[in-house]
């Protein structure tokens, strides 16, 4: 791929280790394809840095820049020396036409984002706050790929109350109340660093019944 991409050298940018590529809350008009090096995505949650992912060559990031007037949702930092192709409105068609494999990759990424966004939307359509919190666990469970885990009905989630509040679109206090209700009903267990859903199938049935009442 490096050879083909060299034709687009004029759109290439280099970042030194530790350099910020873009910051959370900045307006985004560009997105990137990593040619070499690694990029770390970080989000600030209540003043604490949370590492979201480490991206490797050939991965695309910042693609949500297509959503006009939407600030970046995370900070991208170069882990080592990083070379990227920078896409913007002006060069988008040139780059995509000249490199259909990148266009296909972006297409698949958009598909994933559409499904993820729709799923999140489904969570938000639930009016019952307890069901909404429960549905966040179902949503997170659906993205898991660990087949070995699927043999049991209990699921562990390394999430914080802030994470759940974000996905459920609810204040942190309200999420905490609903989580305690689940604990009282013996549907979940909470430890310092994880939340365990005792029976994901029971939770699925519960959410389905709440959804039918809409």
């Amino acid at each position, binding site marked *: 791929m490096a050879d083909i991409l060299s034709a687009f050298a004029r759109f290439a940018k280099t970042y030194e280790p530790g350099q910020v590529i873009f910051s959370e809350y900045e307006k985004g008009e560009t997105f990137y394809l990593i040619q070499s090096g690694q990029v770390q995505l970080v989000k600030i949650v209540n*003043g604490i840095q949370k590492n979201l*992912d480490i991206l490797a060559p050939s991965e695309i990031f910042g693609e949500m820049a297509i959503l*006009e007037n939407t600030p970046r949702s995370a900070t991208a930092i170069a882990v080592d020396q990083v070379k990227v192709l920078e896409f913007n409105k002006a060069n988008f068609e040139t780059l995509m036409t000249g490199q*259909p494999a990148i266009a296909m990759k972006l297409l698949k990424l*958009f598909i994933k984002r*559409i499904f993820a966004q729709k799923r999140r939307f489904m969570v*938000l359509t639930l009016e019952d706050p307890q069901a909404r919190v429960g549905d966040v666990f179902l949503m997170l469970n659906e993205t898991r790929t660990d*087949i070995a885990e699927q*043999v049991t009905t209990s699921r562990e989630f390394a999430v914080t109350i802030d994470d759940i509040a974000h996905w459920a679109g609810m204040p942190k206090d309200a999420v905490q109340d609903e989580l305690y209700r689940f604990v009282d009903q013996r549907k979940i267990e909470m430890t310092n660093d994880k939340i365990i859903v005792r029976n994901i199938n029971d939770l699925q049935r519960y959410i389905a019944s709440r959804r039918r009442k809409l």
Partner: protein
Amino acid sequence: MPKAIQYRKNSIIYFQGDIEDKIFILQKGIIISSYQDIETGEPVQERIGEGEFFGVKSALGHFPREETVMVMSDAIVLLFTSMEFESFALSNTRIILKMLKVFSNQLRKIHKQTVSLLHSTEQANPSDGLFSVAEAFFKAGNISAAVDIANRYISLYPTGAHIAKAKAIAAKAGSIPEKKSGGSGGFEVPDATSGTDDKQSYILGEQLLSRNKYSEAIVYFQNVLRRQDSTLRYDAMVQCGYCLCGEGNHSDCVQLLTRMLMEAPKHRKTAEALYLMGICNKQLGDAQKATAFFQKALSMAEPDLAAKIKKEMNGGA
């Protein structure tokens, strides 16, 4: 090569919820796509035009079908597998560009709907937000990122509410040494090949492993293993084992975990190591050895792990 298929009136091409690897293009006839509006739950019907692709998102994304597609009058459709579609589209970039446009519009629409449902509860002011990011990096000791973002704040919001503080952070460029260890939740960009904090490396490795990025995760666990005195040494060995097993490198996994079990037979992750040894031996075709490892693992496993072991012993994948 795509196949032309004829469908009779009233037949169903696919149902909502089906999972399959097929993409269609309507050549001739009338077909209707039916689904529920995600906001209201109301049924929606849309006619698919001749020459239009359908089933693309679910096939390429490996998601269940979101709609039921029904034939209203005898129709001919071309059927592609997703691989056939990809090679077709790669030689017809115009099609991908057109789909990118359609999908980016769909993404914008659903994003707008989501934001409106959230009633702006989490829409922080971008100016305050940007400064809070600079401040968080600063407090965590990642001065270069803090300075970089503070400079962005100064240039974007020269009269912003936090300008004085942003200038103070920006002025720190080069004056304060970066923190060397995590300490109070501090974040440092890890260097997987040199002296990074082993706890940090371990956490990053775990994050990558949870996303099944085995080859990348292993680099971080190896970074831990390079430190002979690390308290996470044997935990990292087991995590490396998961990576190797996930990559299908069962022999190396057996070799590594044999070492781990010899050096630390009573480690808290011993049951997991034995479980992995069982899986690897099973994959390597030694069923007897696999059973022995599973039985040993079962004798010391926590309930969740025990369930996984039992599944493996009962012939699960």
